[in-house]
């Protein structure tokens, strides 16, 4: 077209990014790739094709890893790990810095290859993914540098198996590899089979940057390879980002193995627009929320909740905005929406949307490219929360919408989901926005924004969106373990036995303590408790699944506890200590009678001290204000997990109960505790302490019974948010397996001893398990 003609049409014209460097790199590698193991590429083997989803063209041939490949990768990682850790923080920091630098020098090559392989617009890979990738390595170079001084009691976990998705291939690699390496771990990483190329380029860059061999190993292939990594006995920790469905399988596969696990899974993020929002900005925010990366984003704002009075205007404006989205060749610099990653994914999106008969569907009318996998940005209004598309993740450029009337209703709708990854809240009223944001059950909440990320701010989900955090100080927790724990096996403590005889003095029949009341067990059974010499000490009720259900229901009802102030919770914990102290001798005698010996005094003293510890922490376990690169702040709040079910330590009946109850309630959780199985009696005296300490009913319930019978019920209960076990019964695997359905957090002892009298019996590990980090982004500007 002539200048004169364009002067009239004012079209943008083509602006293709030059892909020749990326193709040259592929050709240099022979267009065929093996794995990257022990610092070198293996010869290409049997495999599969990697295609450009924008036109279906083959980019390269990749190799499907065999068990032997995975074994070799794990062995290389194992061999390299000790030396890598011993290199020290500064030594590792220099390597991470070098990786960041080489990524920066090759930023455009990485971005173009990412777009070729994944189909995302070059703008996104160039302006969003790659800058965040570099930032992640720079940030964690700093974490490596600071590890010895700031985390003196933490050690590397060892060999990390990492399985990443196809939506942000290089960025998810960075999120996994950078913190692992910083903390002295080595990795075996499997990229998604649709998008392995930038991981292989990364391997090449690591080699060029002089990273010691074996520190980063990359194997390619489909889900079967992921399974080999997950189940490999030589892997100490699994980190996975991907679908909730696969996350569940990984949880099940690793249950009971003692492998550490973090999961970053799906979402159905609410995008809440109040009537006083800057509507045009909220609409532009939606473009970033649901049309970024064609909506193939786990934290996409895919569920629009708009206040009823402005809904029609908002939808009209939104439709107008959608019309100016440009869809097409992702290598074009003027494209907003690129290609769906694979024809299979395109089919899945199409089927889900076509299966929706309700609501009103609006799709962008622009003509789609004739070839390649493209789906038009789509809005479906007028759906009810009960509709499948309001509940399930579509993972495509499809926004569903419904309305709300009041702030409370907005929160209810936002939280009416099995997921809990991310959310947006739009309002110009600071009171409203800051009130609503923390009430949304999600790991990340963006006020007046969407899809903002930074290495300094933790990212991760609650509920079925997974567990664990990536980024910030919190993200390092998953890649470290306590430094000074020599694992010792915990031997099951059998209850004392004896002859059922008569009880001395007045008969004592303690009950279960549920919802602030003493309750007879549903099953009507009790169990005799004996002294080591076989003398009958009393009868304790045998709780069954219904008692457990009632305890959880009472805990759910005591929700208000989470909204009390830290000061108030501290007061109650101090009061418990005071009341326990008043009856110290009696408790000590009871313990001595059950366990024999004279350890009771010490245990009571330690228990009083521990209550003081958590009273102290109740108003001090603060969040953080992160230094993120924007005007405003990202707040890392410590929110209570919710309802925590705990199998208390068997060996120290009072100290154990107090040690798990303390952090749980200090942080605003409600707890359903199952008391020490062999030495239960002391709990009955303790609930009297609770009763006299002004603890609201339902915040703590105490059950007695068989741990192995109650463990599967607790683990499967959908209204329990976390289960901890320090039992001497072998229930760690049962709990981890049982948690699969709602992906509740689990914290189990894996049959290892914890010294409840020492520092490992209290402190940050407990407080962190009792809280979820909730990152609230608060950009601002007058």
């Amino acid at each position, binding site marked *: *077209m*002539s*200048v*004169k*003609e*364009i*002067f009239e049409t*004012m*079209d*943008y*014209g*083509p*602006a293709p990014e030059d892909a020749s460097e990326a193709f040259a790199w592929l050709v240099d590698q022979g267009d065929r790739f093996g794995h990257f193991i022990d610092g070198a590429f293996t010869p290409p083997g049997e495999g599969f094709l990697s295609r450009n989803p924008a036109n279906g063209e083959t980019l390269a041939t990749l190799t499907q890893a065999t068990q032997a490949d995975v074994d070799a990768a794990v062995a290389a990682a194992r061999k390299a790990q000790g030396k890598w850790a011993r290199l020290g923080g500064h030594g590792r920091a220099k390597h991470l810095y070098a990786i960041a630098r080489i990524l920066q020098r090759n930023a455009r090559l990485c971005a173009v290859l990412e777009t070729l392989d994944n189909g995302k617009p070059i*703008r996104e890979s*160039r*302006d969003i993914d790659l800058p965040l990738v570099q930032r992640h390595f720079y940030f964690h170079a700093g974490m490596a540098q600071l590890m010895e001084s700031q985390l003196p009691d933490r050690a590397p976990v060892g060999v990390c198996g990492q399985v990443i998705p196809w939506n942000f291939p290089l960025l998810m690699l960075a999120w996994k590899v950078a913190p692992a390496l910083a903390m002295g771990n080595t990795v075996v990483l499997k990229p998604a089979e649709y998008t392995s190329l930038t991981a292989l380029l990364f391997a090449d860059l690591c080699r060029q940057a002089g990273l010691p061999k074996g520190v980063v190993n990359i194997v390619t292939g489909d889900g079967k390879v992921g399974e080999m990594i997950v189940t490999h006995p030589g892997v100490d920790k699994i980190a996975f980002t991907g679908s909730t469905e696969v996350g569940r399988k990984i949880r099940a596969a690793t249950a009971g193995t003692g492998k550490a696990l973090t999961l970053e899974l799906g979402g159905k993020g609410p995008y809440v627009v109040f009537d*006083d*929002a*800057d*509507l*045009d*900005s*909220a609409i*532009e*925010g939606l473009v970033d929320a649901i049309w970024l990366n064609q909506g193939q984003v786990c934290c996409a704002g895919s569920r629009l909740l708009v206040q009823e009075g402005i809904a029609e205007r908002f939808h009209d404006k939104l439709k107008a905005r959608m019309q*100016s989205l440009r869809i097409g060749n992702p290598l074009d*610099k*003027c494209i*907003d929406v690129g290609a769906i990653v694979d024809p299979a994914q395109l089919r899945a999106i199409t089927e889900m949307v076509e299966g929706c008969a309700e609501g009103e569907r609006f799709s962008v009318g622009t003509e789609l490219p004739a070839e390649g996998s493209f789906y038009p940005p789509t809005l479906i209004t007028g759906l009810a929360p009960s509709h499948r598309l309001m509940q399930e993740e579509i993972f495509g450029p499809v926004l569903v919408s419904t309305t709300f009337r009041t702030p409370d209703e907005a929160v209810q709708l936002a939280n009416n989901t099995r997921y809990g990854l991310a959310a947006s809240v739009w309002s*110009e009223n600071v009171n409203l926005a800051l009130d609503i944001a923390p009430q949304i059950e999600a790991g990340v909440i963006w006020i*007046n*924004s969407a899809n903002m990320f930074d290495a300094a701010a933790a990212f991760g989900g609650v509920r079925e969106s997974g567990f664990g955090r990536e980024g910030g100080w919190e993200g390092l927790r998953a890649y470290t373990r306590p430094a000074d724990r020599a694992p010792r096996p915990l031997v099951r403590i059998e209850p004392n036995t004896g002859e059922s005889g008569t009880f001395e003095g007045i008969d004592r029949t303690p009950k279960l303590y549920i919802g602030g009341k003493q309750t007879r067990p549903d099953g009507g059974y009790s169990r005799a408790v004996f002294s080591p010499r076989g003398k009958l000490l009393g009868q304790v009720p045998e709780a069954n699944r219904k008692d457990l259900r009632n305890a959880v229901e009472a805990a759910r009802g005591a929700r208000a506890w989470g909204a009390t102030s830290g000061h108030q919770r501290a007061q109650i914990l101090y009061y418990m200590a005071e009341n326990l102290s008043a009856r110290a001798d009696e408790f000590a005698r009871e313990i001595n009678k059950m366990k024999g010996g004279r350890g009771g005094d010490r245990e009571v003293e330690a228990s009083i001290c521990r209550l003081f510890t958590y009273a102290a922490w109740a108003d001090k376990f603060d969040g953080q204000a992160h230094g993120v690169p*924007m*005007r*405003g702040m990202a707040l890392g709040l410590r929110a209570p997990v919710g309802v925590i079910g705990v199998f208390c330590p068997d060996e120290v009946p009072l100290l154990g109960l107090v040690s798990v109850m303390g952090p749980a309630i200090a942080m605003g959780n409600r707890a359903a505790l199952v008391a020490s199985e062999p030495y239960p009696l002391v709990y009955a005296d303790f609930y009297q302490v609770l009763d006299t300490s002004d603890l609201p009913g339902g915040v703590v319930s105490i059950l007695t019974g068989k741990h192995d019978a109650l463990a599967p019920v607790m683990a499967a209960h959908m209204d329990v948010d976390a289960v901890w076990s320090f039992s001497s019964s072998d229930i760690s695997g049962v709990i981890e397996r049982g948690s699969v359905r709602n992906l509740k957090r689990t914290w189990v002892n894996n049959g290892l001893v914890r010294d409840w009298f020492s520092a490992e019996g209290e402190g940050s590990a407990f407080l962190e398990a009792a809280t979820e980090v909730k990152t609230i982004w608060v*950009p*601002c*500007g*007058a």
Partner: protein
Amino acid sequence: MQTDLATPVAGLPQARVARNAGMALDLDWVMRSQANRSAIERRVATLAGRRTVKKEYQAAWLCRAISCIDLTTLAGDDTAGRVHRLAAKARQPVRADLLDSLGMEGLRVGAVCVYHEMIAPARAALEGSGIPVAAVSTGFPAGLTPFHLRLAEIEESVKAGAEEIDIVISRRHVLTWDWAALYDEIRAFRAACGPAHLKAILATGELGTLRNVARASLVAMMAGADFIKTSTGKEAVNATLPVSLVMIRAIRDYCAATGHRVGYKPAGGISKAKDALSYLVLIKEELGKPWLTPALFRFGASSLLSDIERQLEHHVTGAYSAGYRHPMG
């Protein structure tokens, strides 16, 4: 050499777009209007990465930018001679040989913008070109002269032949949220303009917040402004992309509600060809192509043209250009 014009590229806005009739002051609407600064800044910051024009497209867009320039001189030392020179540049903004190569013969700027005393020499110099003369008015730039004199100034300028009047608003009405006073003031200015077009300068650099900019924009349009304009060029902060986004979103809302298309003029601080492209992209994305004409969009700029000229020569020759190769205005 003077190139010939078959069809004038520049032209009077009224020839193409129905004038904004204004409407009663709708305070509910004004007060509902919001502007979230950080989101607005993100939008304009990412837009540069979302859209680009290359090669002949870039050349065409730069020509379009030239056609939308209000070539301006607003200096105390303006003379008839200076204005004559500027008018000549307005008629022939780019060297004829370059326009020939581009196939853009006849390209002209949108208007020439001067103080009242320079209207007559400007009119004389632009005789027959079809390029309108715009005059700044109403006690420009502060707008704090007696109200009746401000009205009289408009009338005098219209009588002297100005076809566009760039008025300044009383910033205090915005800062104290006296929207009725602002409305009445602009309404009176509009009446004084008669057939001449009214461009309302909001002096956004002095309004404190983007929300004030949004609300002042709406009130100005309700009062009948044909254009809303950011700045006098004399404030510490002049046109910016975030301010522009707020103002053009107000224009979009106003058009949706009334059907009237109001024009937009960013002024001050736009001196690079690249900046001009950013503005055109913003307009195209947020308001749409109908606004990409001098009838509805102008740059208030004095040095922008010379940068565009150099870019156009680069496009034609493939070699970077030098300032002295292009005739002064």
